[in-house]
C-alpha cells in the first residue's frame, strides 16, 4: 500500500482551496467576465482591445491558473519531489510564490483604495468597519454595457462612489443619519440601496489593519510580494549576465584584462556599495527600472569571482584544452564546455544574491529611494509606518515580518541547494 505524505503539492492545493472558498463569488464573476470578454472579442475585436487592461489580464491569468494547476496535478500522478519531513522553508516558499502569482484573487482589492479616511485610517488588525451601500445605477442592456458592469465588479478601482464607511447609524423617517468620527451626515432614503426594507449595511474586514490613508495593509502586503520578487529576479538576472560574462573574460583571456577586472572587483567589494547605489539613484532619478539596473550592477562581484576561479581551474583540464585546440570559438567554449561546470556554484550563489537584492530593495524603499509610491513595497510601507510607530505597530510589523520570512526562506533554500549539490555531504 502506498502511503500518502503531506507534500508541498498538497499544501499548494490546500492554499488554492482556501482561496476558492473565500473568493468563490469573485471567481464566478471573473469566469463570467472572461466569457463575456471572449464574446466581445469575437463580435468586435477593436473595442475588446481597447478594453483590455493589465489588471484585467492579471485576473484572467489567476483564474486560468486556478483551473489549470489542479488539472495538471491530477494528470501528473507520479510527482517525484515530495519532502517527507516538515520543512518550514518549503511551505514558506510556497506561500510566497502563491502570493506572487495569485495576488489579485487573494486580496480582491485595489492597492490604493481609500475612502472616508477619518473612519478608516490606522485601524488595528482584525477590525471591521460598517459600510453603507448607495443605490447603483441600473445596468443598461447591450453586450458592451454588460461587460463593463461585470468588469467593474471584478477589477476594483482605487475609488468607489457607491459605498460609505461609518461608525454608527440612525434611521429616521426621512433618511439615515450616519456618524463618521463625530462628524454627522445625513442621506435621503432614496439614494440608499435597500434590502428587505432596511438599508443594506455590510462589514468591511481589515485583516491586517489599515495605514494612515485608510488603505488595506493586507492588500498592499500581498502586492508588495510581486514588487520585491520581480525586482529580485530582474536584478539577479542582470548581475548573472555581467558576472558570468566578465568572469569568463577574465579567466579565459588572463593577462591585463584579468588584472584590470580583478582590481575593479576589489574596488567594488571594498567600498560600501550602498553609498554608490544611493548616489546614483539620487542623482539620476529612482524608478522601477533604475532600481533594477543599479542593484543588478552592484551585485556581480561574487559571481565574477566564482566564475573566474572555476574557469581558471577548467583551463588546466584536458577536455577543455582539447576543445580549445580543436578551434572552438569563445562563445561555444562558454556554452558547451564551461557553463555546465560553473552552473552549480553559480546557481547557489544566485539564490543568495536574490536574497541580498530583496534586502537592498527594501532598504532603499525604506530610505525613500526605491521604486516610488506608485507601487506598494515592503520597505516603503515600513518607512511610512515609522511616523506612526507609537500608534500603529501593525504598519511596521507585518511588512517587516514579510521581509524576514522572505529572506529566511531564500537563505534556507540556498543553503539546501548548496547541500544538495555538494557531493561530499552525501557520504
Amino acid at each position: 500500500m502506498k502511503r500518502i505524505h503531506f507534500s508541498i503539492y498538497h499544501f499548494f492545493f490546500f492554499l488554492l482551496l482556501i482561496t476558492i472558498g473565500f473568493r468563490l463569488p469573485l471567481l464566478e464573476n471573473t469566469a463570467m467576465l472572461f466569457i463575456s470578454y471572449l464574446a466581445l472579442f469575437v463580435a468586435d475585436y477593436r473595442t475588446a482591445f481597447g478594453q483590455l487592461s493589465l489588471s484585467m489580464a492579471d485576473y484572467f491569468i489567476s483564474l486560468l491558473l486556478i483551473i489549470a494547476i489542479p488539472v495538471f496535478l491530477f494528470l501528473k500522478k507520479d510527482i517525484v519531489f515530495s519532502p517527507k519531513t516538515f520543512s518550514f522553508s518549503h511551505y514558506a516558499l510556497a506561500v510566497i510564490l502563491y502570493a506572487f502569482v495569485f495576488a489579485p484573487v487573494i486580496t480582491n482589492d485595489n492597492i490604493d483604495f481609500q475612502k472616508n479616511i477619518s473612519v478608516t485610517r490606522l485601524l488595528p488588525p482584525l477590525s471591521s468597519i460598517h459600510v453603507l451601500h448607495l443605490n447603483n445605477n441600473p445596468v443598461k442592456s447591450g453586450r458592451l454595457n454588460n461587460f463593463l458592469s461585470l468588469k467593474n465588479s471584478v477589477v476594483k478601482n482605487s475609488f468607489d462612489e457607491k459605498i460609505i464607511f461609518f461608525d454608527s447609524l440612525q434611521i429616521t423617517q426621512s433618511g439615515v443619519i450616519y456618524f463618521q468620527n463625530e462628524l454627522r451626515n445625513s442621506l435621503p432614503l432614496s439614494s440608499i440601496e435597500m434590502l428587505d426594507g432596511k438599508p443594506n449595511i455590510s462589514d468591511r474586514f481589515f485583516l491586517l489593519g489599515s495605514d494612515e490613508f485608510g488603505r488595506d495593509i493586507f492588500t498592499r502586503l500581498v502586492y508588495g510580494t510581486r514588487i520585491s520578487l520581480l525586482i529580485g529576479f530582474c536584478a539577479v538576472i542582470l548581475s548573472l549576465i555581467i558576472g558570468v560574462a566578465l568572469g569568463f573574460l577574465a579567466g579565459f583571456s588572463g593577462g591585463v584584462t584579468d588584472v584590470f577586472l580583478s582590481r575593479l572587483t576589489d574596488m567594488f567589494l571594498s567600498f560600501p556599495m550602498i553609498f554608490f547605489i544611493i548616489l546614483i539613484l539620487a542623482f539620476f532619478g529612482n524608478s522601477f527600472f533604475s532600481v533594477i539596473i543599479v542593484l543588478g550592477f552592484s551585485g556581480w562581484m561574487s559571481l565574477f569571482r566564482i566564475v573566474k576561479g572555476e574557469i581558471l581551474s577548467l583551463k588546466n583540464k584536458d577536455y577543455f584544452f582539447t576543445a580549445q585546440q580543436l578551434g572552438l570559438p569563445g562563445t561555444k567554449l562558454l556554452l558547451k564546455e564551461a557553463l555546465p561546470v560553473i552552473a552549480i556554484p553559480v546557481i547557489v550563489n544566485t539564490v543568495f544574491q536574490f536574497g541580498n537584492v530583496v534586502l537592498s530593495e527594501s532598504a532603499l524603499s525604506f530610505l525613500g529611494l526605491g521604486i516610488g509610491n506608485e507601487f506598494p513595497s515592503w520597505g516603503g510601507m515600513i518607512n511610512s509606518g515609522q511616523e506612526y510607530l507609537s500608534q500603529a505597530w501593525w504598519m511596521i510589523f507585518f511588512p517587516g515580518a514579510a521581509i524576514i520570512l522572505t529572506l529566511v526562506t531564500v537563505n534556507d533554500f540556498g543553503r539546501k541547494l548548496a547541500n544538495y549539490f555538494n557531493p561530499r555531504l552525501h557520504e
Partner: protein
Amino acid sequence: MKASQLFLSLIKRLTTSVIVLLLTVSFLFVLVRIAPGDPSQKFLSPSLSPQLIEKVKKTFQLDKQIHEQYVSFLKNALTGDFGVSYSFHRPVNEVIAEALPFTILFSLSAFVLQLIGGLLFAVLAFRYHKKLWDKFLSHGSMLLYAVPSFVSGLFFIYVFSVQLKIFPSSGIRTVGILENNYFPLLFDYAQHLFLPVLVLSLTGLPVYFKYFREHFEESQNKLFIIYLRANGVSERRILLSHIIPNSLNSIIAYAGVDLGILFSGALITEMIFSLPGMGRLAVGAILQRDYPLIIGCTLTVGTLIILTSLLADLIRLKIDKRLVKGLIN
C-alpha cells in the same frame, strides 16, 4: 633582508590601494558633475536674472570645464583643503571632523560587541554540540541574519522607547544636560547609544557566530586536535589555547574589511536613531548635491577602509609567521 622585503611589499600594497582610492574619487568627481541637476539650483529661482545665475555658478566654480575643476580640486586636495561644503557653509574638513569621532566610537563598540558575542555564542553552541542549545542558537542566528536593521531597530524602539520608556529613541544626548558634570554625561551617552549599538551589532553577530561555529566543527577532525585529545588534554584547554587561536587568523581578514565598512557609517541605523555619524552625513551630502562633501566623505571612508584592512594584515602577519613567506613570494 626579510624585514625590508616585507616592508616593500606592504608599501606596494598600500600604493595600489591609494591609487584605487584616487581612481574612485576621480570617477565620483566626474560622475556627480555629469549627472543631471546642479547644486546651484537650490539657491536660485528661475525669476532671477541670468547674470546673477552666472555669478552664483561662478562662486561654486561650476562654470568652468570639468577638467579645470578637477585640476583645481587636486591642487587644493594636496594641501589638505577639500573645499567648502555647500549645505553647511563651512570647510569640509571641519564638518567631517565633527562626525568622525562619533562614528569611530559607535562602530568600534558595535564591532567589539558582535565579535565577542559571536565568539561567546559559538563557544556555547560548541559546548552543547548537537543538543538543544546548539540547535536553538543555529536557528536563531539564521533568523537573525535575515532581520534587516531597519526592522530590528524599529522593533527595539517600539519595545524599549515607546512601550517601556527605558531608552531614548533618537539623538545622542538629552537636551540641557550639564556639560561639566562628567558622570551623568557619560551615563546619558551610554543610555542613548545602547539601542543603536545593539541594533548595529545584531546584523554582524550571526556572521561571526556562523564562522566560529563552522571553524570549531571543522577543527574537530584535525589531526593535531585528535592528538591532543588522545594525550588527555582537557577539552577546555583544547578549545581555549588551540582551537580559538587557530580560528582567529582568517576572521581577522574579514573583520578588517567589516570594520572599515562599519566606519563608513551604519547608514540605516544612524537614520533610524538620528545619530550624527558619517553615514547620515554622506547621504545628506548626496541628497543636497553637496559635491565637496561627497568627495570628502568618500576620501575619508576610503582611507579608513584601507587603514583597517592594512591593520588587519599586520595583525595576521604578527600572529601567523607563515603568511610572511606568502606575502614576499
